[in-house]
């Protein structure tokens, strides 16, 4: 209690009222149910720090996190799936080996360190990209969707768009690296499994063009586990978000939560954790659905 209120002058009566208001005097089960009840009505309580409802604070910063996460996902998929396919098709060659090595290194690198290295290299030494933040103030545009990439285009400001992109590059690469590395390994393994199957042999026995066999026959089946993994991984990106956002000063929910934890801003942390869990469960659910949709054997 004391820590939360910080250095405001607190009288015992105030403390008592606050306790009552926060329900801290009730037994634990009651508190939990109260929380759920309030939560289901969207009421997460007020954040001490901001003196505003917690939900408002979180929602304000959500688009930034979503933009970053989506971009990371996109880059990871665009880069790693073709690499995985290439590695599987040219198994044993230099393409295969180098992809595997890169993936292993990518998985073994701590995300926070990688981000810092990128900053040191590209921002500080080479001055190609900005060090942190999401955009340069002078290039602001009115906020429509909250996603800078879209808003800048809507406002017709190419320079703002480029500015937004420049700010996005490093965090996206850092966040996408871990996901991309795993995705590449999964795609490669899945593709290799598929290529061993009889139906690939049969397809070749039909004299079909190589490209058709690889992409239509093989990849279609190989993507099934890959896509499910990608969906699950996206849920896990949420955890990585927190650290990456902190490093890059990205004004998203992640950095907000990290600060809230240190400031012992419990209502906010609770709300954030709940949201994260919901999204995580949602992504797993989506993964299940995707699997059903893609695999004709399981379709109803």
């Amino acid at each position, binding site marked *: 209690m004391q820590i939360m209120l910080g250095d405001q002058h607190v009288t015992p009566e105030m403390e008592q009222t606050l306790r009552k208001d926060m329900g801290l005097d009730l037994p634990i089960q009651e508190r939990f149910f109260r929380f759920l009840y309030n939560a289901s009505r969207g009421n997460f309580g007020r954040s001490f720090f901001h003196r505003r409802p917690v939900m408002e604070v979180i929602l304000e910063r959500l688009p930034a996190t979503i933009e970053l996460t989506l971009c990371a996902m996109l880059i990871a998929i665009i880069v790693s799936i073709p690499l995985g396919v290439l590695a599987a098709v040219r198994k044993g060659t230099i393409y295969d080996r180098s992809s595997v090595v890169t993936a292993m290194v990518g998985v073994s690198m701590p995300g926070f360190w990688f981000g810092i290295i990128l900053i040191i290299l590209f921002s500080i030494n080479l001055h190609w990209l900005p060090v942190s933040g999401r955009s340069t103030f002078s290039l602001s545009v009115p906020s429509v969707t909250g996603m800078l990439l879209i808003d800048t285009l809507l406002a017709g400001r190419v320079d703002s768009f480029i500015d937004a992109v420049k700010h996005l590059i490093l965090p996206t690469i850092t966040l996408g690296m871990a996901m991309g590395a795993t995705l590449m390994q999964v795609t490669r393994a899945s593709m290799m499994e598929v290529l061993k199957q009889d139906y690939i042999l*049969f397809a070749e026995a039909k004299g079909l063009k*190589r490209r058709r066999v690889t992409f239509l026959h093989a990849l279609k089946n190989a993507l099934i586990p890959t896509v499910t993994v990608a969906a699950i991984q996206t849920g896990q990106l949420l955890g990585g978000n927190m650290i990456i956002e902190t490093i890059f000063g990205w004004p998203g929910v992640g950095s907000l939560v990290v600060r809230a934890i240190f400031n012992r801003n419990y209502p906010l942390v609770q709300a954030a954790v709940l949201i994260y869990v919901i999204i995580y469960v949602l992504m797993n659910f989506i993964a299940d659905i995707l699997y059903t949709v*893609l695999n004709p054997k399981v379709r109803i």
Partner: protein
Amino acid sequence: MEKETSSSLPPLLKIENLSTYFDTHSGLVKAVDGVDIKLYPGECLGVVGESGSGKSVTFLSVMGLIKKPGRIASGSIQFDGRELTIFNPRQYRSIRGKEIAMTLQDSLTALNPSIKIIDQISEVLKEHDREIAAQGKTAIKNRAVEMMKLVGIPDAENRLKDYPHQFSGGMRQRIMIAIALACKPKLLIADEPTTALDVTIQAQVLNLIADIRKELKMSVIIITHNLGVVAEYADRTVVMYAGQIVESGFTRDVILNPRHPYSQGLLKSIPRLSELDKAIHPIPGQVSDLVNLPAQCRFFSRCSQRSDECRKDIPIRKLTNHGEVRCIKVEA
């Protein structure tokens, strides 16, 4: 049902001294070692052998489908006057599915589970039959339906959009045959066409192949370990063991009067209804290790008629009745 070979015509397929080796972790596996086979137009050839005899690998080599760590080490494969061993991948792709077609043993794994049947049939047509492809989607679809009806799939029109797992085993095997025959190939290689099927369906499928063969005047190679299949449908038969041909000849001769101890053993091991009270006679032992083959008859360890003179490489010799045997104990 027999058919005399048109031996006046040159062979459609001529395999000479084919050797296909696999470089594995445990050593060099000589899956096919010096095999000679001739197939004449319109003929049905039976290739008999157990697992590991090299029967499938031989014809995968013909199709050019041997992949690392396997390679065709030596020999020649002539198809319709062309030398296949010097073909590049593009040339191979132009004859596969079009002039030589192959079906596989397990129809469930041989058909792509994520692609509709209509597409799996029409892609062969689109690839190899320029005329039909030019006529558009409907023409292709009609031909696909035609093929499915030909192989006896009921309600073909409505089942085009289905996936392989929605068909029964027998149906799938027929679909494979439909796909293989869509472009009216000169040669059909059927690898174990009946092994994964119920006994009743087996006969249906084989009769189907026989009928189509008559109609299209196609040559057929049936690879199987089941002598019964061969006895009924093949004009000539080749028996393989451990990568080599141990006996070959007209089916009638090989079945009724097998000369090689292995062929004799095969026939003896078939349980007959008329002899229910007698003991079953399997061939003792297992196929020898194909990696470290000693220079002797490969059937040595399991042969009841072996002797010391069998301890050297045995060549194959011609018999008077147009057959061949690889055994010193047999008089030509």
